[in-house]
C-alpha cells in the first residue's frame, strides 16, 4: 500500500515539476511605446536588449523588448502580440488603458523627476491667450490629441481653434514656432530644460501648461500574477542596485518609483475630458 502511495507521489511530482519549470520559464516580454520620440526603433533596440537582459537575470525568465515611437504600429503590436508589461507614454496610457487592460505597476522617472509638465510655447508677445491662436501646434506629446487637449486646455481637440500635430522632431518644431511657421509648440519637461539653453528661448513665451502630470507609467497587460509583484520589486529596487547603474544611465533616469495614484483619474474611454 505504502509503495503504491509512494509511486503515486513520484508520479505526481514527475508530472508537476515539468509544469512548474515551464511556468517559471514563461516569457516576460515588454514593450516601450513613446510616440514622438526622435530616432528609430532599430536605434533603440540595444537599450531594449539591455533592459531585457537585466530583468531576465533578476526574474529568471526569458525577456524580450520592443520599442515603438510611432503610435499606429504600437497599437497594432498590442492588438496582435500583447506583451506582459510595458512602459507607455502617459497620453497613450490615458487613452488606451481600458482598451488594452493596462494596470500601472510603477512609474518612470525621466531625468530623475517623478512628474512631467507640458508647456505651450508661442512666439514672444504674439498672444497670452491660447484661444487667440490658429493654425497648427506641434509637439512630440501630441500624438494623442485628446489627451493633450484635455491636459493643456481642458477641451477636446475639435473644440480648439487650432490643430494639434504630433512630431518626432521637437527641435525643428521649436525652430518653426520661433520663425512663426507654426502657431506654437508643446514641450515636455526635459525638452523645456533643453529649450532654455537655446538662443530661441528668448523668442518664445509660455502661455499654457498642464501643471504636474504623471510620467510614463510601467503597466501590466491583462491579469496580474505573482510575476507582477516580482517585476515591481525588481524595477523599484533598480535605483539601489549597482548592477543597474549603467542601464539607468542609458535610460537617463535614477530608477523607477511606485505607480502614480492619480493615473486612475486620467482615462479617456468616453472621449470626454475628465473633470
Amino acid at each position, binding site marked *: 500500500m505504502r509503495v503504491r502511495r509512494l509511486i503515486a507521489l513520484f508520479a505526481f511530482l514527475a508530472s508537476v515539476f515539468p509544469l512548474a519549470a515551464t511556468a517559471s520559464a514563461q516569457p516576460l516580454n515588454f514593450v516601450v511605446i513613446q510616440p514622438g*520620440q*526622435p*530616432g528609430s526603433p532599430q*536605434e*533603440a533596440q*540595444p*537599450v531594449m536588449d539591455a533592459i531585457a537582459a537585466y530583468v531576465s537575470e533578476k526574474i529568471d525568465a526569458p525577456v524580450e523588448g520592443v520599442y515603438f515611437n510611432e503610435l499606429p504600429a504600437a497599437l497594432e503590436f498590442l492588438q496582435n502580440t500583447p506583451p506582459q508589461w510595458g512602459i507607455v507614454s502617459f497620453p497613450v496610457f490615458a487613452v488606451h488603458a481600458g482598451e488594452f487592460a493596462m494596470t500601472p505597476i510603477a512609474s518612470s522617472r*525621466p*531625468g530623475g523627476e517623478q512628474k512631467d509638465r507640458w508647456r505651450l510655447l508661442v512666439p514672444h508677445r504674439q498672444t497670452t491667450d491660447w484661444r487667440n491662436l490658429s493654425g497648427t501646434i506641434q509637439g*512630440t506629446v501630441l500624438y494623442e490629441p485628446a489627451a493633450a487637449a484635455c491636459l493643456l486646455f481642458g477641451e477636446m481637440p475639435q473644440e480648439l481653434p487650432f490643430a494639434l500635430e504630433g512630431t*518626432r*522632431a*521637437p*527641435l*525643428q518644431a*521649436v525652430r518653426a514656432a520661433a520663425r512663426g511657421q507654426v502657431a506654437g509648440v508643446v514641450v515636455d*519637461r*526635459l*525638452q523645456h*530644460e*533643453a*529649450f*532654455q*539653453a*537655446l*538662443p530661441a528661448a528668448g523668442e518664445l513665451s509660455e502661455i499654457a501648461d498642464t501643471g504636474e502630470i504623471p510620467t510614463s507609467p510601467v503597466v501590466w497587460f491583462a491579469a496580474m500574477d505573482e510575476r507582477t509583484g516580482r517585476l515591481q520589486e525588481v524595477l523599484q529596487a533598480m535605483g539601489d542596485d549597482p548592477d543597474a547603474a*549603467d542601464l539607468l*544611465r*542609458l535610460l*537617463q533616469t535614477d530608477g523607477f518609483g511606485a505607480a502614480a495614484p492619480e493615473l486612475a483619474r486620467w482615462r479617456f474611454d468616453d472621449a470626454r475630458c475628465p473633470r
Partner: protein
Amino acid sequence: MNLLHSIKESLFLAIWRLVSGYAPLVIAVGGVIAAVCAAAAWLYLGMDTDHDRLVSPEIPYQARFLELLENFGDQEFLFIVIHTGGTEEGKTLAARYADRLAERLQRHPDLIEAVYYRLSPVDLGTGALLYASPEEARALAAAVGLSAPALSRWYGDGSLAGLLEETGALLGVGAAPPGGAEFLAPVLGALEELLGRVEGALAGKVVDTPVFDLTAIGTQYFFTPNERFLIMRVLPDKDFGELDIIAAPLALIRGAMAETGAEFPGVEAGLTGRPVLQADEMRTTERDMTLASVLAILAVGTLFTVMMHGWRRPAAIVVSLLMAMAWTFGFATAAVGSLNLLSVVFALVLIGIGVDFGVHIVSRFLEAHRSGEERPEAVRTALLRTGPGVLLGGVTSSCAFFSVLGSDFLGLAELGLIGGIGILLCLLAMLTVLPALLLTTGRRQTEVPPTAISFSFLEHLACRPKMVLLIVASVTLAGLPGLMNVGFSYDLLELQARGLESVEYERLLIEQTDESTWLAAFTADSLEEMTALRELLQTLETVGRVETILDYLPREQEIKRAIYAEPARALAALPPSPAVPAAPHAPRVLRALETLEEALMGMQEKLFAAGAGEEVVRIERILGHIDASVQMLAEGPDRAQHLDSLQGQLRQQMGGLVDRLRVWLRADEVTPWDLPPALRDLFIGRDGRFQLTATPSVDVWSFNLLERFVLDLRRVDPTVSGPPVVVYESARLMHQTFISAAALTILFVSLILYVFSRSLLYVGLTLLPLGVGIVWMLALMGFLGVEFNLANFFAIPILIAIGVDGGVHFLARWREQQGRGSLFSTSTPTAVALSFATTTIGFGGLLLAHHRGLASLGALMVLGSLSCLAACQLVLPAVLRALGNRTWR
C-alpha cells in the same frame, strides 16, 4: 665676601680710570669694533629659516623625519582649494580655472617645483586605458569595434572628406555616439574643433595646434569625495636664505590666482597649507611687530625724554645699545654663522633688556648731578655705585638665556647663546661707552641740574610695612583661585590671526573634506608590508585617508586587458599609417559635410528630447561651422585647396592617435615602477622603500586630538613620521625646554646671588618681588582667561631675568644707604619703574597684534612686568623696613 668686594671695586675703578682718561678713545674703539662687526654680519651672517633645523637631528623623531625628507623629498604642499558648488557646471568651471592657473604657475619652474591637480591618460603612460572601469573599458572596446571598419576604410583613403563621411555615417547609426553617453562630450568637442578648423582653413586661417587633444579626454581632476572642492597641490621652491622661505612662490601663486579669478569671476578659490600658514604668520607677525615697535619707540622716547630731561642722555643710551647690538651681530657671525627663526629675535631681546642697564646708570648720574656733583663726579658715582648692581642684574639676566644652551631645541639654544652673550655685551657697552658718552656730550652747555622725578609718595606706604604686607598677603590669597585656572594651550591654529584666508581654508579642509595639510608618513620595505600596514591603519578611528602607491594602480587589470584584446586586434589589422590622400575636391567635401550635417541634426533632436540643452547648443555651433563651410565651398569650389594643409595635419594626427590607442590597448600590467615619475617619486623612495601617508580624520590643530592621532599611529608603527609627529614632539620639547629653562634660570640666579652675597636672606629678598610678581601675574591670567601657549611661554625666562633685576637694584641701594634715609627719595625706584615701564610699553604694543600668539605674548609680558613692578615697589621696601637693620649687613 671681602675678596669679591675688592675685585669688584678694583674692576669698577679700572673701568672708571679707562673711561675718564680715554673717553673719546673708548667711544672710538667701541664704534670701530661695532662698524667692523656690522660689516662682517652684513657680509657673512646668513639666515637659515628651515624649520627642520630648529631641532637636533640626533633626536630619534627628528632623525626619522630628516631621513624621510632625504628619501622621498619635500612633500610640504600648498593647497589651492577651488569651490565647485557640488554641481557638474561648477566642477567644469573649477577644472577650467585649475587648468588656467596651472598654466600660469608652470611658466615659472624656478619658483614652482610641481603642480598636482589632475591626471590625464597621457600622464599615466602606456597603461592609461587600464584605469578605466570595466564598464568604460567595454564601452571603449565597443566604440573601437564599431569604428574599426570605418577606420579601416578611412586608412585606405586618408582624406578629410573621407573622415567626415565616416564620422557622419557612424553618428547616423546609433541612438548615441559610438561607445555611449560617456563619449559624447569628447566626440562633440573634437567635432567642434575639427569643423571650426575646416571653416577657418576655407577662410584662409592656418592653425598648427592639434585637433585631437588626448589630454582633454578622460582626464581626472582631484575633486574631494563630496565633489564640492577641487584641490590643487603645489610644491613651491623654498629659499631657506630668506626669512619668508616661500615669499616669491607665494606672491606668484597669489598673483596668478588673482589673474585667474578675474578670468573666472564666478569661481571662488583660496590658498592654504602649512607653508602658507607659516608665511602668513610671518607676515602678520612682521606687520604686528612693526606697529608695536613704532608705538614702543614713540612711547619710550617720550618717557625717556621726560624722565631723563632731554634727548642727549636717551640718545647716549641708544648709541651704546646700538654698539652692543653690532658687537652681538659680530659674535653671532663668528660663533654661529647664521640666524634661525628663533635667534633672529635676539635684537628685540637686547633692546628690551639691554636698555635697562643704561636707564640705571643714567638715573644714578642724574641723581648725583642733581645733588650738586659735577658731571665727571656724577658719572663716577653712577659707575661705581650703581655699576655693580647693573653688573649683577646683567649677569643674572643672561642666565635666563644661557639656561637653554644644552637644549635639543637647537633654534632656542642658539638664541640662548647669542642672547646671553648679547646681554653681557650690552652690559659692557653700558659700563664703558655710556659713561664715556655722558662725560663727553653736552660739556660745553651750561647745565641746570634737573628736577627729580621720584616716587616719594610710596614712602608713606613703606612706613607701614605690616599693613602693606597684610594687604599684599590678602590680595595674593584672593588671587589663588585665578592662579588655579591657568592652563597651557597647544592649539596652534588659535595662535593665528582671525580672518586670514589660509586659516579659514585650513578650517574648511578640516571640516568639509578628507584632505589634510598634515600627512603622517610610514615606510615599508615591500608591497606586502605596505598592504598589511594600510589595512591596520584603516581600522583606526583617528585616521582619515590612507594613501599608497597601490591607490594609483589600475584595478582588475586582467579583466580589462581581456576586454581590450579584441579591439587591439582590430586596430592591429589596420595598415601602419593612413594612405596619402588626393588633394581635397570640393564636390566630395560638400557631400561629406551634408552627410555629417544630417547625422548631427538627427542626434540633436534626440538630445533635445532628452533634455541635453548644452549638447544641443554645442551641435548648433558645429552646424554653424558646417553651414559656413558649405556656403564658402559652394561660392568658391577652388577654396577646397585651402583644406590641403589641414588634411595633412589630420592624417598625421589621426595616425598618431590610432598608434597611441594601439599601444594602450596592448599594454602590459601596470606595476608601481611603471607609474609616471611625478607620482612614483612621491611614494617610492631613493632607497626603493615605499611610503604610505595617512591623513587625520580629526582636527589635529587641537593638540589633544593631535596627540590621539599620533599615539594611535604609533601603536601601529612606532617609527611613524611626518609633520603631525614632528609638530607633536616639537611642541612637547618646547614646553619641556621652557620649563627646564625657567627652573635652571632660578637655580643659576640664586647661585650667583648667593656667591655675590653669601647670604640666603639676600637671595630670598632679591627673588621675593619676582616670586610675588609671578604669582600675581598667574592670578591675573586666570581671571582674564589668558593661557600659556607655545608663543607666549618664552615670556617666563625673560620675566625672571628682568624681575630679578629690580630686586638686585633695590637691595643694592638699600645696602648702600645702610638703612639710613628713604629708599624712595633716591633714583633707584624710578629707574626700576622706568625699566619695567619700557618693557611694558615695548611688549604692550603687541596687544594690538592680529597674530593671537603675539598678542598673548604681549598680554603676558604686560601683566608680568606690571606685577613685578608692583611687587618691587610695594613688597620689597615694606619687607626691608620690617626686617630692619639685618637686611643691609
